[in-house]
């Protein structure tokens, strides 16, 4: 099924399992959301559980906080990444801190779904990658799915989790299909996953970048370079153990993300792996990322987003260090 359908099924299952689970967002009811992720759910679970919200993002998150204090688990839908900023204050000042501030009395078990990254030919504010803002904030967790199977399981795992989670959905992959194993999750919510094994270079990314990395690995294989691809899945906290194991084997690694690289997830991975794998490294860790400019007009967005070509160029650079 598609990732969109997998998310829909995951949300449906969460609503069935726990009567305290609510969905709230703009246009999520009759319309089913602008991406149709919540299609049909209001019809089946009612307006009290699948709540069409007035158009104010801070209130979607702020009322979800109050609902959490009352014992509800609200899944907030931000319509697009670029519209999360009105809710930034509630997320950073309240959602992230209230478990601490209440000395454990409040459980902030809420999920903020964020369709993120670009690649859909949209206008401004519809293609951004704000994940590092949230990763920097203690009290929050940030995850991203890259396959329909992960989408189905990770959304349910996130809803069941007692910490607040920013759930980043790569919107450019919503309509891509994959197998969904209904028997059980493939991995823990905060585990990174090796998507392809290789011996020469490790590529690490998340969300939309995973598929791009796999395509780059295919091309590199034709040129005789063996690439290992790691899907971080959890952006905060990062699960470094599989990355360390991989880099100790390959000695070379590259991070891939759509966000600009300054103070980013890729930078954090480079810093940590440099520290942990220093004596295994055969080249410095490189970052392939968006440029340090506002997200460009979408007619030229493919020259902003990490492409197979840019990844392969970075592969050539790390391969050239010890030759």
């Amino acid at each position, binding site marked *: 099924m598609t990732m969109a359908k997998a998310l829909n099924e995951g949300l449906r299952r969460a609503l069935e399992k726990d009567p305290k689970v*609510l969905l709230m967002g703009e246009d999520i009811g009759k319309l089913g959301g602008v991406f149709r992720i919540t299609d049909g759910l209001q019809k089946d679970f009612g307006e*009290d559980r699948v709540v069409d919200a*007035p158009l*104010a993002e*801070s*209130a979607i*998150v*702020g*009322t*979800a*906080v*109050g*609902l*959490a*204090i*009352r*014992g*509800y688990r609200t899944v907030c839908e931000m319509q697009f990444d670029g519209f999360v900023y*009105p809710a930034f*204050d*509630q997320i950073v*000042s*309240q959602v992230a*801190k*209230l*478990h*601490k*501030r*209440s*000395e*454990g*009395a*409040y*459980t*902030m*078990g809420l999920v903020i779904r964020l369709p993120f990254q670009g690649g859909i030919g949209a206008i401004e504010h519809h293609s951004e990658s704000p994940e590092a803002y949230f990763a920097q904030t*203690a*009290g929050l*967790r940030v995850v991203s799915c890259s396959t329909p199977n992960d989408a189905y399981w990770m959304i349910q795992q996130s809803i069941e*989790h*007692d*910490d607040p989670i920013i759930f980043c959905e790569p919107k450019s992959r919503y309509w891509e299909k994959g197998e969904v194993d209904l028997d059980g999750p493939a991995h823990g919510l905060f585990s990174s996953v090796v998507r392809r094994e290789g011996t020469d270079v490790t590529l690490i990314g998340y969300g939309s970048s995973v598929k791009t990395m796999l395509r780059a690995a295919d091309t590199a294989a034709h040129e005789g370079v063996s690439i290992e691809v790691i899907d971080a899945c959890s952006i905060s*906290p990062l699960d470094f153990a599989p990355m360390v194991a991989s880099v100790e084997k390959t000695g070379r690694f590259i991070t891939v993300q759509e966000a600009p690289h300054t103070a980013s997830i890729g930078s954090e991975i480079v810093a940590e792996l440099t520290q942990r794998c220093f004596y295994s490294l055969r080249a410095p860790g490189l970052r392939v990322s968006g440029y340090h400019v506002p997200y460009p007009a979408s007619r030229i967005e493919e020259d902003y987003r990490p492409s197979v070509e840019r990844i392969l160029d970075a592969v050539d650079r790390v391969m050239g260090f010890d030759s």
Partner: protein
Amino acid sequence: MIDEELVQLLTPEGERVAHSDYVSTLTSEEIFALYRDMVIVRRLCNEATSLQRQGQLALWAPLQGQEAAQIGAGRAMAPTDFSFPTYREHGIAWCRGVAPEDMLRIFRAVTTGGWDPQKYRHAVPTVVLGNQALHAVGYAMGIQRDGAEEAVLALFGDGASSQGDTLESFVWAAAFNAPVVFFCQNNQWGISTPSSLQFKVPLYRRAEGFGFPGIRVDGNDVLAVYEVTKRALENARVGGGPTMIEAYTYRMGAHTTSDDPTRYRVDAEVEVWKHRDPLARVKALLTREYQTKASAFDEVVAEAESLASKLRVDVLAMGRPDPITMFDNAYADQHPLVDEGRREMVELGVSAGTSP
């Protein structure tokens, strides 16, 4: 009279006044109890100010002048209602049963919390203006889903009235007919920002534009605040939807102990409000109408003194927390970076790591 639109049941001189919609239902004992509450919270507040001046608190936000607004509203709440305060709601906290020393923990800077919000049904304070108004509405939406006959009191001040979150909370409450009462203490000043910079029409009139009733009450008249708040909460509990109450009052002291109000407001204004003192008028009423004896008032003063002494002892006993506690409750579940920090702190010998 301050304003003809104001609900007032007791003048500053302690004379009862008739109102077309509201009448005081309180017995002499109940009025005396409200008076006692006000004397105690004023005395505790003054003790906290002294403690701050003596270097024992990092900061204090005095409530002086707002005793009637807070005690009237706090005592109008049912035990099952829930309140969402700012950082100045010591009178409400007192009514909810929070121990005075627990109110001061955050100001002693030994914790970011202070009391169990679920036990007292009184949320931990919100410092970012207006954030809590949305939490209150969300909580009220939970009450609706539970089918409970409960209401929420959302507290904020004139200072928060320009915040988007406050106004969004009005939209939400109206859209979902949430069982919430917005209780705005208009104390005329947001630090140095006068209310004239914040609104051009009386605050309570905003409510009508959002689709629910707004009422302005004399915030220094505890009888009026009690009746107005009680009716609004009762209405909310039975599905009548939100009400906004503007308690028209005055911040007699500084915004906080870090503030210097002499830089932005004139003494003459403070003098006017001194004559509207919330305690004096109730004392006058009790003396004249119920012949309450001087000894009864003396007993209250003595009780307040004793509580203030206890507060001082309790605050001074609050030592520096073990630094390892900073890692507690950062997350509900295990987190590798929190574990890493905790380990490092123990390795550095900063803490023995005895934190739970």
